[in-house]
């Protein structure tokens, strides 16, 4: 049982932090250890948000690569993989070797050994479910009808896993599956700034069949199959970028939606309504102009509706926002063209909320249906997929390494029809998504980790 600290104890502990040298008794004197210094820095891959080079501007080598890809996309693919590889295998090998030669080994490591499922898609032609793993940098393909594991410690075996340095997959967050070819499109929320595309049958550590350089901070994907266009949300500077679906290399977007009038304040989920020619974008409300000091503010979360062909600094046609919407870090969205329902993975709401007749909605409207409650097994749902052939709704759960499937018209505290599970039944994931800072609470002896 935790003992509640008094204010005085807190102050004493705090003082101890800044005066801890007093505690260093002679018997705690330094000891001799073996030291083998390792090379640092410049030879390591560093394509992240904070790198010294601008991630949104390709390096000269990257320009050469993408130019080559445009000219001859197939013969240069191996080169592409080698150039932008995350280099995980080599990093792990070097660390193990150094530790074997006396380098310090961590006394504890906090990490998740199970997948963190950020997105989901269904391929009805192959009867497969694809799950993005943002933690271990892979995607896994499961049989759509895989039964729920019967034992609490049993997991669902995937049919295929695509993972490894050649895949270029890093912090993969957005997913789209071509309904005809089964090609799998994957984008990442950080570091690599690219969309990679794999054939349906891809397996193991394989190079993507295409690589597209994207802006930094992509969140999600959607497509207009009639126009063969693919849409991506960019969290910041906020925009929606629209490419040819077959775009690769350094190809520029066909158009973008961006500007102060758009109301794209930290856009996340995106869904296409081809029937009504509309585009839905969920926003979290974080707003600022990074070029101008003091422009920051927050707006409520919302779903903004645009013409599908919108371009430039356009105002949304309608905005769905307000307390009755229940939006709370809304993530992926999918539109059902057969009845006009819009499904929203509602991460912190621990729910999937469904807006009926979404093409006409505006203002503070409640969802028509809410899938929520302990029977649902939802935990931080961030991905949704619709299987209209089998009338099923799939959800990826960031917080428990699972995917859950429901009847398409499910409502309330309903149990899943089946569960794909990649960890034990009681799993609670740590939900890490690039742990780039840390602090320590000496009062409670706790480690605080922001994503």
């Amino acid at each position, binding site marked *: 049982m935790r003992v509640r600290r008094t204010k005085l104890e807190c102050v004493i502990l*705090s003082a101890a*932090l*800044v005066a*801890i*040298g*007093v505690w*260093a008794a002679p018997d*705690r004197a*330094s000891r001799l250890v073996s030291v*083998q210094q390792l090379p640092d*820095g410049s030879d390591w*891959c*560093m394509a*992240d*948000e*904070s*790198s010294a080079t601008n*991630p*949104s501007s390709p390096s000269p080598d990257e320009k050469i690569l993408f130019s080559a890809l445009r000219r001859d996309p197939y013969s240069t693919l191996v080169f592409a993989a080698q150039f932008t590889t995350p280099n995980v295998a080599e*990093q792990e090998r070097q*660390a193990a*070797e150094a530790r074997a*030669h*006396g*380098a*310090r080994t961590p006394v*504890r*490591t*906090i990490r998740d050994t199970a997948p963190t499922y*950020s997105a989901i898609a269904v391929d009805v032609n192959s009867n497969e479910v694809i799950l993005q793993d943002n933690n271990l940098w892979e995607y896994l393909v499961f049989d759509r009808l895989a039964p729920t594991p019967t034992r609490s410690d049993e997991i669902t075996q995937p049919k295929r896993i695509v993972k490894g340095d050649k895949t270029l997959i890093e912090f993969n967050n957005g997913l789209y599956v071509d309904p005809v070819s089964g090609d799998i499109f994957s984008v990442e929320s*950080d*570091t690599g700034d690219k969309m990679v595309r794999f054939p349906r049958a891809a397996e193991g550590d394989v190079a993507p069949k295409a690589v597209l350089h994207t*802006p930094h901070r992509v969140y999600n994907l959607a497509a207009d199959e009639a126009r063969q266009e693919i849409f991506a949300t960019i*969290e*910041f500077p906020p925009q929606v970028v629209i490419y040819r679906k077959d775009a690769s290399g350094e190809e520029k977007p066909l158009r973008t939606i961006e500007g102060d009038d758009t109301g794209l304040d930290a856009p996340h989920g995106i869904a296409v309504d081809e029937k009504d020619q509309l585009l839905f974008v969920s926003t*979290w*409300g974080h*707003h600022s102009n*990074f*070029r101008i*000091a*003091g*422009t*920051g503010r927050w707006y409520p979360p919302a779903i903004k509706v645009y013409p599908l062909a919108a371009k430039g600094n356009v105002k949304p046609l309608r905005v769905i926002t307000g307390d009755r919407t229940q939006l*709370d*870090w809304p993530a992926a969205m999918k539109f059902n063209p057969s009845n006009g329902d819009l499904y929203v993975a509602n991460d912190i709401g621990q729910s999937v909320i469904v807006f009926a007749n979404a093409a006409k909605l505006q203002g503070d409207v409640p969802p028509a249906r809410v899938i929520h409650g302990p029977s649902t097994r939802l935990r931080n749902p*961030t991905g949704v997929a619709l299987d209209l052939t089998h009338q099923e709704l799939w959800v990826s759960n960031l917080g428990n390494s699972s995917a859950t499937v429901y009847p398409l018209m499910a409502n309330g505290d309903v149990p899943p029809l089946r569960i794909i599970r990649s960890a034990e039944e009681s799993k609670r994931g*740590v939900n890490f*998504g*690039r*742990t*780039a*800072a*840390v602090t320590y*609470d*000496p009062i409670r*002896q706790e*480690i*605080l980790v*922001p994503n």
Partner: protein
Amino acid sequence: MNHPQIAIFARSAKEDTPYLRSIEGQKSLLGRTMHDIAFDAIHDELVVTSPLAQAILSFRGAANGEEAPLRAIQGDKTQIKGVGATGKVSIDPIHNEIFLASPDQAILVFDRMANGNVAPKRILSGPDTQLSLGEQREGGGNVPCIRIDPIHNLLLVPVGGYGGGKVLIFDRTASGNTPPKAVIQGPVRMGNQFEIYAPKLRLITHTRNNIEIWKIPESGVSTEAPLKIPAPLGRQSGDIGIVLDPLHKEVIIATAAGNNIMTFSVPEVFDDWPAGGPLTSAAPVR
């Protein structure tokens, strides 16, 4: 960044240990990307930025779930600028001040209790400061982490980027166009965060493979080499985070791309060193 939570773990947490609680959701006002975070053990609060909204947030130390911050500094008087540049924040809990570096080559200092649209209480900026904090760019452009030594009244500001540069050392209360009083010549390599151990005047970084311990001069230019302790991380990237646990003599590392938190026992950071330094060096690995 698909889920910009702050997860809180027991110090003893290991692989697959769930977090004790998490600060998250719309009410928290959190968003991507938190490149720094500070705990104020005197007032039992934590401080972090919300970069996409150009804001500094202060939470209860025991904040849990979808909890609103106690205070938020945001608005046109604040002079807070950038996005990646707004990812770093530091606190001096003894003197009740919050420090934020700006891509306008300035250090903004706010009262710890500031709330809303408030101006900085002082600004350190100008050519004599030698500040070179990077520039805000379209896709990135982060400023360096800064730290305060409240015992010796020092403000430490790295310049020169991740590849390794100098660390400028100012008087804690410096403002205006004031030159640094001391410099660590370096090159001091670091990730997103560095730490200081004020009682021993030491600066600690992790440079992807090694923990480095530098002596902090109070005046003049120090060209002394750091003590290097090999501590490789495996899968990682340059945005490494670091914090100290003096009570247990541990250094805690956030590995960025590694998606994990590694704790190393490093008494050398906290202990007195015998003459000649605490370590002997073995042959290189390769």
